[in-house]
């Protein structure tokens, strides 16, 4: 069983081919191709037009790398939400068109389900498990009970963590993407020089809030005379911010583990996914937390934590595994959903 997956929900244009034995036959992301600039070096931009221009090249590339043609493919899957509507429309329409021409089933995949299920491909993680999904657009704690059964037990009330990293980087004039650059600056910094708030620390439940921390960083920067931040100051601000953000996440995740122990005694594993899972400080602290709480810890490889199409193809394979392929025809009427929560259940809080 072989699935072609398409991911266009945000900035990345990505296509991958994956089989049911967890083998990644190809994994093409435009930003990688970018290095070779075979198509004129167009940077993926916000507009749907960019996805539209690039997508068919990337599909060709992914199929060539996987050494397959359409007759080999079992189904075609695309991210159908949540995300930016223009990009979603491009990916979904392309997938539907290919599916009808080649008479294959089309599968509409939730981007968050992709992030949630990828550790089952990379680390053979068994259901159920606790997932911390944190990226530029999301920050959630989910109980993953099955390929189509998720229970969200915590979410950000305002900004996503990756977004706050980006905005802190912007305020410090460090450029984007903020995650890697703030982490790099923080390495040389003193994290105890500035005391920043740990949002929601100690509160019941496991929701997040980061906008207060963002505002606090802003006030901190404004205490310095304009343009008088030394590289040492910047490093210290980054380190202090990263520590505050990490401690907030660790506190919330600790609560989530406690909730699991009480309500889901079968769960003994925390998995992280999403772009912010690339942050090594966060990984280290979560490892310590899980060890202290007698939980296993799994973090997929960084290139499969950030947005990619492997996770979309894999989520489709999980779906196919559960359902009859023949029942998938009605998915052709599926409209992209810019907001598409995995679960609205908040039954524990």
């Amino acid at each position, binding site marked *: 069983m072989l699935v072609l997956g398409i991911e266009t929900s945000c900035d990345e244009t990505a296509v991958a081919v994956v089989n049911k034995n967890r083998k990644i036959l190809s994994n093409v992301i435009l930003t990688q191709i970018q290095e070779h600039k075979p198509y004129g070096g167009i940077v993926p931009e916000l507009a749907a037009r960019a996805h539209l221009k690039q997508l068919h090249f990337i599909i060709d590339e992914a199929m060539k790398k996987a050494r397959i043609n359409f007759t080999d493919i079992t189904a075609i899957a695309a991210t159908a939400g949540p995300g930016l*509507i223009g990009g979603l429309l491009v990916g979904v329409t392309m997938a539907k068109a290919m599916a009808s021409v080649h008479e294959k089933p089309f599968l509409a995949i939730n981007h968050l389900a992709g992030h949630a299920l990828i550790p089952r491909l990379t680390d053979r993680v068994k259901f159920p498990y606790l997932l911390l999904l944190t990226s530029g657009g999301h920050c959630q704690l989910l109980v993953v009970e099955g390929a189509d059964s998720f229970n969200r037990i915590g979410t950000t009330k305002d900004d996503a963590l990756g977004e706050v990293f980006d905005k802190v980087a912007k305020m410090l004039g460090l450029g984007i993407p903020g995650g890697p650059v703030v982490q790099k600056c923080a390495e040389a910094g003193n994290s105890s020089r500035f005391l920043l708030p740990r949002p929601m620390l100690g509160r019941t439940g496991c929701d997040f809030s980061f906008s207060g921390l963002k*505002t606090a960083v802003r006030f901190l920067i404004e205490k310095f005379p304009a343009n008088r931040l030394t590289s040492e100051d910047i490093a210290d601000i980054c380190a202090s911010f990263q520590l505050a953000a990490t401690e907030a996440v660790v506190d919330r995740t600790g609560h989530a583990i406690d909730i699991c122990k009480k309500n889901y005694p079968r769960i003994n594993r925390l998995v992280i996914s999403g772009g912010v899972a690339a942050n090594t400080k966060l990984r280290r602290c979560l490892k310590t937390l899980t060890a202290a709480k007698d939980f296993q810890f799994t973090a997929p490889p960084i290139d499969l934590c950030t947005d990619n199409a492997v996770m979309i193809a894999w989520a489709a394979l999980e779906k196919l595994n559960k359902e009859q392929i023949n029942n998938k025809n009605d998915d052709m009427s599926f409209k992209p959903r810019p*907001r598409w929560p995995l679960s609205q259940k908040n039954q524990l809080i």
Partner: protein
Amino acid sequence: MQKKNKENGIEFFVESEKDTELIARRLAKIVQKKDIVALSGDLGVGKTVFARAFINALPGALEEVLSPSFPILQIYERAKVEVYHFDFFRLEKPEDAFELGIEEAFGCAISLIEWPERLDFFLPKKSLEIEISFLGGVTERVIKMSGSKVWSKRIRNI
């Protein structure tokens, strides 16, 4: 909370997030389809706080309104009208906004736009401009509302 009437609008001095939310809810009572609200202010000043209270004050089910910086546009279907909540923080070229459906929003919904300055001259003149700024303290803010003569009349009693 203090309120000052100005020549082309009003100015509020608010002490807390609760005040900001109150003003947003009052604005929600007087808006209608095709209105454009341009919401500017620095990072962390509370634009999304304002937006969340505004969207939820329009008749309809309680919505989870998160910062749209990453997805750039979120559409909320309220009971009587749709709200297009834009955040152009990441917009590189003003003309990219057309791909995101600004014309559609301007014509058939309420548009609520964070980082409207990134739109440059594509921001219609008939917009209500709201500017939130810091005022020394951690929670104190100034909220300025201004716009055309029509808007000045409409917002007078907020």
